[in-house]
């Protein structure tokens, strides 16, 4: 077995329980350790891997698999995912068990209902931050980018059709106008 795979496993194991708010919240810490302290990846390959993981479909947490693969091949990939997802799986399982046991308790109901507006507010923030990051280029390109974002938001909000239409249209508009 590749000895680095073990290091990868324990590194992500340690990181996983700190990643409140998802993998994106832990990216600065990953960068500090993986690039600056351990020198496992260059800055450029770290950024490129992150961009790929964000652009690809699926949870952004899969970025840890890119790091694991880069450092220690397929063993590193498996080690990174087990290390990062294992503890959070067990914790989420425990909390789900607890909430099912306490079902009907008004304090639990208040806790759950109280977290909802915070969760939705943070979703809105994610959209605003990624939208601002995507609004780049020349003046016209920024305007086009913002219009695509607004139109897609309106479509997702108001229409019952799948948002894949908005994504496809956004990609095609980008192809025509953002170059």
């Amino acid at each position, binding site marked *: 077995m590749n000895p680095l795979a073990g290091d990868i496993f324990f590194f992500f194991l340690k990181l996983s329980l700190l990643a409140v708010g998802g993998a994106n919240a832990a990216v600065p810490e990953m960068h500090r350790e993986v690039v600056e302290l351990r020198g496992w990846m260059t800055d450029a390959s770290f950024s490129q891997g992150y961009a790929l993981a964000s652009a690809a479909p699926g949870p952004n947490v899969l970025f840890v698999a890119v790091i694991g693969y880069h450092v220690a091949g397929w063993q590193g990939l498996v080690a990174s995912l087990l290390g990062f997802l294992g503890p959070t799986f067990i914790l989420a399982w425990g909390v789900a068990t607890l909430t099912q046991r306490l079902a009907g308790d008004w304090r639990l109901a208040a806790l759950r209902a109280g977290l909802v507006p915070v969760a939705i507010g943070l979703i809105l923030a994610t959209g605003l931050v990624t939208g601002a990051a995507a609004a780049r280029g020349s003046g016209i390109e920024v305007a086009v*980018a913002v219009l695509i974002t607004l139109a897609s938001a309106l479509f997702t909000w108001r229409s019952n059709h799948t948002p894949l239409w908005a994504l496809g249209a956004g990609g095609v508009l980008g192809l025509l106008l953002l170059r």
Partner: protein
Amino acid sequence: MPTKPVPRNAVSPPEEPPLNPPPGPGQLFVAFAKAGLMGFGGAQIWVRRAMVEERRWLTERDYAEVLGLGQVLPGPNVGNAAVMIGRRFAGLPGSFAATGGLYLFPLIVLMGLVLLWQGFADEPLVSSFMHGLACAAAGMVIGNAFRMSGRLRPPPEQIAVGLAAALAAAWFRVPLPVIVLVLGPVSIGLVVWRMRRAT
């Protein structure tokens, strides 16, 4: 201790159609696999769409509450939600099926991209398309926040909490644990206040 009446917004809005029977592990795997594979801009939106709108396994409020818990716990929000939703419907096999479905196919796509990337990283058509896609994905996330809150019909104080959370995270860049630790208790307190007032 007598149970308090549920707050008025804990009941799903009357226009939501009735729920379908709870799924087994196989159905969970398929639903989460589809959501993960389409999950541009974060799989959360697609998981919500599958659970609440397409398959009708959860009400809008059920889903929002699971996601709220998933956000407080460490790790990927949607991954935590997958564990909890799978647990609720089909126990441990359900959690494994939902988690596996969520990650497996996007992982294959992503590793394919990583292995192929050098070949087309500098292709301008690809980067233009990806740029437009990124804009649309961001809009999709914003629209989804409005869609969820519109269907939940929150009272005004909850709208204020949501906007404060969005502002703190997007504009002031307050670290997420701080937002959850400060606004979470405030929000829970407001829910209790409204429960008391309703009695």
